[in-house]
């Protein structure tokens, strides 16, 4: 499997165009439905593609959540699986999953669940048992409020 992660930034008015070579596309890697690209308010774009030839499970990463109040500090690795007609995106780091009729929906559902988990644990941070306490500690390392 080939995973290519891209981070790009929108140029500000008057800013010179960077002279570096564009990222080389790995042979066989296609911007298939697993493609994930998100632009933040600051104009940053983070994207991941996974090679189309790979079967399931696949691994991909996403760099933002579906909640403007939260920012991921590093891309989150996700396992994508297929169960019958459904796609499942699973994040073992925080024991959460999302699902959908395609990989886009599954990842978006996971991003939603991730944010939901963050806010719920934050609201109950003094009342967490061992397991969720570890998850909360890990979430604080992964996520920043903005």
């Amino acid at each position: 499997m080939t995973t290519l992660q891209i981070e790009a930034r929108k140029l500000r008015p008057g800013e010179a165009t960077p002279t570096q070579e564009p990222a080389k596309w790995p042979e066989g890697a296609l911007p298939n439905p697993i493609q994930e690209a998100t632009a933040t308010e600051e104009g940053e774009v983070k994207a991941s593609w996974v090679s189309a030839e790979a079967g399931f499970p696949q691994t991909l990463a996403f760099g933002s959540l579906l909640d403007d109040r939260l920012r991921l500090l590093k891309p989150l690795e996700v396992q994508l699986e297929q169960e019958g007609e459904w796609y499942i995106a699973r994040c073992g780091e925080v024991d959460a999953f999302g699902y959908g009729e395609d990989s886009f929906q599954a990842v978006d559902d996971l991003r939603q669940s991730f944010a939901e988990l963050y806010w719920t644990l934050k609201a109950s941070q003094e009342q967490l048992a061992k397991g969720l306490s570890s998850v909360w500690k890990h979430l604080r390392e992964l996520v920043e409020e903005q």
Partner: protein
Amino acid sequence: MTIKAREFDQLMDKLGFETRDSGDLLAWFEHDGKKVLWTKRSKLRGDDLPFQHQIRQQMKLNEDQLREALRCRFSRDDYVTLLQEKGLL
């Protein structure tokens, strides 16, 4: 094995999960005033629940334990004991 949506809901009720509607049905297990774990079930049309493996994993149950729980042979106390043995409480 398959789980039906109503069986899941009955199980949540029996084990004392607190449920909340958030697009999906979110279920939180609390013990001694502390949140211990969570899971969710889809509200998709259809009787049999998809993603049962993920649900089982989040509930920290193996297939036999889930089967027993669905047959009402697994109480909240049994569940608490199991979670204690797994070091989650």
